Each structure stands twice: as structure tokens, then as C-alpha cells.
């Protein structure tokens, strides 16, 4: 093997290693952005879950006969707080949104409850938190989009396959959650 071939091979190997290193680091950074943004979503979700017990207690005092609705909210909240991965947490959060919508809908039938300052304040806090979740979720989905692009497009898909970078879930908004925006405060 002549010296030129050796030099060409060495240059080729160096370039290949450089590419692998750069692609791998890019994938790690993209994955970390997904994790970081999920942490932001999680912070707002936790805040939302923390507001639920007080809300249930307030509603209980005015709408004792709505046990099934309240129970559904509590169950959805418990499920969400015990979820240990983003996918389960997303599903539980969507279930909680549906249960909360029903709770707010029934409050329409209880004028005293609607006028209760604590209830109004909780509704406002929930609305603010849901807005924050919505924006954080949009950014989260964008980071997932950027990450997916990296692991699915050539040539970084080869590196992603080699090092076990797997697809992440998008956080889709539940239909119930969209309806939630329409609740009159």
C-alpha cells in the first residue's frame, strides 16, 4: 500500500470519526432539549395537579350530590401524579382535562359555587396553568420535531440507529382540553 493510499485512508477515517462525533453530539443535544422542555411541561402539570385537591374540596361544599364527577377528577389526578413516564403523564393529563371540564360544566348549576371567591380564584389559577402547559407543550413538540428530524434523516439516522436513539412521543392536545378553553369564568 503506497503512502498516498495510507494518507487518504487516514484522512477518510479522521473525517468519518469527526462526522460520527458531531452527529452523536447533535443527537444528544437534541435529546437533552426534549428532556429539558418536558421538565418545563412537567413543572406546569404538577402545579395543575396541586390545584385539584383544593378545587375538589371547594366544590364538595356546594355540590355534594356530584360525587361521581368529583371522584372522576380525583382518580384522574391520582393517575397523573403516579405516572412515571411522559407518555403516561400525557394520557393521564388528558383524562384529567376531560374530568375537569365536566366539573366546571356542573358548576353552572350551582350559582353559589360560581360566586365563591375561592372557586373563582382556583379557576383562574387553573386557566393560567393550562395556558402555560399549552405553550410549554408547543415548545416541547417542536423539540421533539427537531429531534425526530435528526433521527430520521440521512445520514444522522445511521448514527441514531447505531447508538440507540429512539423516537419520542408528541404531546397531543386532547379534544376535551380544547373545550376547556371555552369555559366561562
Amino acid at each position, binding site marked *: 500500500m503506497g503512502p498516498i493510499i495510507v494518507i487518504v485512508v487516514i484522512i477518510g477515517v479522521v473525517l468519518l470519526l469527526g462526522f460520527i462525533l458531531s452527529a452523536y453530539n447533535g443527537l444528544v443535544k437534541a435529546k437533552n*432539549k426534549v428532556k*429539558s422542555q418536558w421538565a418545563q411541561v412537567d413543572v406546569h402539570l404538577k402545579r395543575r395537579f396541586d390545584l385539584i385537591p383544593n378545587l375538589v374540596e371547594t366544590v364538595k361544599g356546594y355540590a355534594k350530590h356530584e360525587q361521581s364527577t368529583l371522584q372522576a377528577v380525583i382518580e384522574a389526578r391520582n393517575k397523573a401524579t403516579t405516572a412515571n413516564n411522559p407518555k403516561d403523564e400525557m394520557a393521564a393529563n388528558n383524562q384529567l382535562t376531560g374530568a375537569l371540564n365536566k366539573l366546571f360544566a356542573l358548576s353552572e348549576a350551582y350559582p353559589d359555587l360560581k360566586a365563591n371567591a375561592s372557586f373563582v380564584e382556583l379557576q383562574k389559577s387553573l386557566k393560567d396553568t393550562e395556558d402555560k402547559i399549552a*405553550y410549554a407543550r408547543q*415548545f416541547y413538540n417542536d423539540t421533539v*420535531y427537531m429531534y425526530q428530524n435528526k433521527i430520521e434523516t440521512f445520514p444522522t439516522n445511521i448514527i441514531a440507529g447505531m447508538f440507540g436513539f429512539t423516537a419520542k412521543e408528541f404531546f397531543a392536545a386532547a379534544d376535551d382540553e380544547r373545550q376547556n378553553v371555552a369555559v366561562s369564568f
Partner: protein
Amino acid sequence: VPDIADNQIKTKSQRNIKRLNAIVFFAVSAVVLALGVMLAQVTLNGFQYQPGVQDTAEYKQLAGMVTLISAEMYLLLFLPAAAIFFSIQSGRKRGIRANASFTAFEGITYYRDFLKDITPADMSIIADLNIEGKKDISATLLRLYNKKIITFEANRVVLADGGAALSPDEGELVNMFKNGGITKSGVAAWKNNRLREAEAKGFIDAPPGNKIVKVLTGCLSSCCLSVVLFFVFAFVAGFLGANVIDDLEASSADLDYFATAVLTQSEVALFTEILTQYAILVLFIVFFVLILCFTGFWIFGYAMTKSHFIKTPKGNEIAEKIAGLQNFIHDFSVLSERQKEEVFLWDDFLVYAVVLEENEDIVKDISKAFKVDLSGVYSAILNL
């Protein structure tokens, strides 16, 4: 020149200057190299020699000197132009960096929330102490669109809700459209009012000291520097030039001879000596011309770019958040690919992306509406 903090809000102007500098540097280098070599070849080929002279060490020295002087002459012709360009660019770059720099208080890397009570114009001004008509008007219109005060229909703006509460920047913009559309003077007034507003809100301030005194001091300093450099240059040039003339007179040869005669070896040696001194003289000329160009035009470039305002502590505090927001939008979203209709989903984040130059497509899209003439048309519909 103020100290430049490491904290910078990345503006398009900064990116453009870097790109342009690189392109011009490579272009000028390539041209200088190619033409310098060509000029040296042409000059050397113009000589005639006695047989055997070209093989001597003296000839090689002469050839070297001719090449050097050719290159220097070439540099003298082209470098001032390049120096003027680079010095203006360098001064501008410093000015742009000074405008976009801020003092960090909290060390924010990412800021992930809305900036309440900060209008797009405020944000633009705090970011780089300047307001850009097309971009910032587009961002303000996008915000009006998000508030459903206006809608866009086939490259024109339609007033959707005339009764909605408008902030001063929005109100003035809407009024401008009502009164005949976007005009140069209207935009200038709008921009000026936004600067005054930002000053009144305490985001920016006029720097301490009398502006006239500072301008005069700057002018006087640059004039004095130029005069000093001129005398240094004249002294060195006079000294070296005198030596060259003395040598030429002593040689009893004239310059015509240089071009037409068949040179002997001793004449080659003599011309080598003369040209060596001449090369040093030209080198000094090149050097001082460059210094003069750099100092004068650098100050010009800086003065043309540097804003008359500085950021207040309050402005710096918000600038840090803006920088964090810019990082967040850049690293955690693809807002650069969004359309103006998606503002209803992204709210002010998309407006911020427009102001912070992350999304230029929306500016192009909205500014299409600027071109339509409004003259005489206003009922509920506003053509921009």
C-alpha cells in the same frame, strides 16, 4: 469607545457583517495575489540584459526587488480601498456590538415566558438600541392581527375591530394607515415616537455628557491623529525619498535608461540598491496610508452605527431576558418556519420571533401589504 460586555443579543447585522467580511477577505486576497504575481512578471519581462546577467546573484536580487515593489505598488493601489471597506465595517461592527451588548444581572440562559408590557417596538429598541421600520411595523401588525384588530386579505390589511383598545404604538400605526397608508415620513415619526416612548419608560437614556462636546472632541482627536500621522509619514518619506534621489544622481543613469538599455551586471547591482530603498519607501507609504484609512474610516463607521442611546439598568434587565428569550426560541422551537396565521397558536412568542429576526418570512409576507396604495380609500377597510 465603551467596553463591550460578552452578553450580546444576536442581530442580523452582526451575522451579515461577519459573512461579508469573510467573502471580501477571500476575494481581495485572491485578487491581490493573482494581480501582484502578474504585475511582477510583466515588469521583469520588460528588461533587456546582456548575455549571462540573468544567471547572476545580482539579477536575482533585482528580480526580488522588482517583485516586491510591484506587489507594494499594487497594494498601494488596491489596499486603501480594501482598508476603507474593512475599517468602516470594523467600526460598524464595534458599533453594532456596543448597541446589542448588555450587562447581565441574573445569568439567564433561557427565558421561557412572555415579557409583559413590552411592545414589539420596545423589544426591538432594547435589543439593539435601534428600531427597524419594516420588521418592527410587521411585528406590531402581527400583534394587531393576533388581537383580532386587523386581518389580512390578499396582501392588504382589513380593519376588523376599530373599537379595540390600542397601545400608542398600535394606535399610531392604525392612524397612519387611516390617513393614507405608510409613508416615509410616517414611518420616521412612528420610529422616533417609539424611541421617545422607550426613553420615557426608562428602558434607554441619553448617555451622560454633552453630545456636541463629545462630537467635537471626537472630531478634534481624529484630526490631530491624522495630522501627527501625516507629519511622521512626510518625515520618513522625505528621508527615504532623498536617499533614492541621491543614489540616482550619483549613478549618472536616468530612469529612461532603466527601461530601454541593455543592462550590464554592474547596473543591475546599482538598480538593486536603489530599488531596495525604494521598496522600503513604498512600504512606509503603504503602511501609513493604511493607518490613516483605518483610523479615519473606523471612527466614521463606528459613529455612523453607534446609537445615541444607552441602556438603563431597567433596560439591561429586560435585555437579559430578551437574550434568554432569543436563545429559547432559537434552540427550542421551529418558529422560524411558522406562518403569520399561527400567531393565534403561538401568541406573542411568534411576534418575538419576528422582532428578534428568527422569522423573516413573516416580515416578507406582511410587508407585501405595505406596497398597496391607500390613497383615498378608507371605510372599514384599510389598504396598506
